[in-house]
């Protein structure tokens, strides 16, 4: 697998086909859990792991599955992986599990995992599939982080609250109070706020794309006709 191929897959996952703001898949956890940066990033990373592993697993066994049993088998693989990860974390990484615990089972039904498997892993070799899963997962994580950050600032006026749960009590000092004496704009952390903020993020991406497009055009226009 060439460097370029890696780069394409990565760019695809992080920006061009970003699950959160372009494909609009896997939105339920995205909207439900992005109430703070820590929550968002934690879920994003957990999803990334599952996506990478399931991509690889499916790519390896895809030839063995008849068409009509395709979806059940794929989903079965995801479910097994997720449940296994959930139990393992619960047992051996308990403190992290407390933060992520409720989110992990949700990954099973995150559309994006199956969507990616169907669209990519079912047609590509294992390494690429694993990498694609990872890129897509990281793209999602990025959106989750931004969304979580925005909602946390607007809703509570803080950033990184709850980080102590993930990194231990000593991390408590990392919590940033962005706006002191903040009244708290509850809407931002409620479902409507989640939708509206994501809507604005999508618009933001459109804006960046538009700007890039405009730049590209003026650039090529500037080249004198040979």
């Amino acid at each position, binding site marked *: 697998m060439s460097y370029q191929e890696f780069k394409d897959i990565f760019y695809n996952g992080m920006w061009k086909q970003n699950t959160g703001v372009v494909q609009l898949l896997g939105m339920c956890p995205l909207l439900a859990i992005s109430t703070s940066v820590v929550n968002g990033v934690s879920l994003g990373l957990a999803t990334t792991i599952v996506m990478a592993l399931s991509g690889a697993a499916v790519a390896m066994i895809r030839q063995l599955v008849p068409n009509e049993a395709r979806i*059940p088998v794929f*989903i*079965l693989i995801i*479910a097994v992986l997720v449940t296994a990860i959930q139990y393992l974390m619960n047992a051996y990484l308990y403190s992290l599990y407390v933060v992520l615990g409720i989110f992990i089972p949700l990954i099973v039904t995150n559309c994006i995992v199956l969507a990616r498997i169907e669209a990519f892993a079912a047609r590509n070799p294992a390494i690429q599939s694993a990498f694609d899963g990872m890129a897509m997962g990281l793209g999602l994580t990025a959106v989750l982080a931004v969304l979580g950050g925005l909602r946390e600032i607007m809703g509570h006026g803080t950033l990184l609250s709850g980080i102590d749960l993930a990194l231990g009590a000593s991390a408590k000092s990392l919590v940033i109070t962005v706006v002191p004496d903040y009244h708290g704009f509850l809407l931002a952390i409620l479902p*409507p*706020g989640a939708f509206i903020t994501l*809507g604005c993020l999508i*618009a933001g991406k*459109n804006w960046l794309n538009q700007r890039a497009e405009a730049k590209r055009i003026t650039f090529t226009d500037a080249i004198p006709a040979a």
Partner: protein
Amino acid sequence: MMTEYLLLLLSAVFVNNIVMVKILGLCPFMGVSKKLEAAVGMGAATTFVLTLASGSSYLINHYLLGPDLAYLTTLSFIVVIAGIVQFTEMVIQKTSPELYQTLGIYLPLITTNCAVLGVPLLNVQEKHNFMQSLIFGAGSALGFTLVMVLFAGLRERMEGADVPGIFKGSAIAMVTAGLMSLSFMGFSGLIK
């Protein structure tokens, strides 16, 4: 008894609407709501799957798994649901090719429509009996269909609106979903 069931149904449709309040099932909600007909079709398909899934998952949980095998709940539910969806997909492809095409990638994704797994899991969590499970499943699906159809109506109208360029398409749809969910907060507290 009857009132209790009725309240459960109404609560599932309006007060605890699966999409607007519980934030489940968003991908098809966003993806298949551009056209009214597609929204109705997706709603119908989901209602069928969700009701069936609620019933069968209750049976599996109650008679096959029991408390000892609780760790298989997710696994067995999702496999059964995937099977039901695959079956539905084949039937739709045969009987209504247009619907099949419109529902596109969302049809197999009913499997991962979080709502379809979420509702059976909620049934287990709330310790619903068989009848309650069915009603809750059907109610959630009806609520899903309802908001889908309303949302599709809004989106069709918005096609003609002078929406700022960068908000055209999914961005404004998101904002609309947000304002819908804001409105649905008005139901809160109606049925506790």
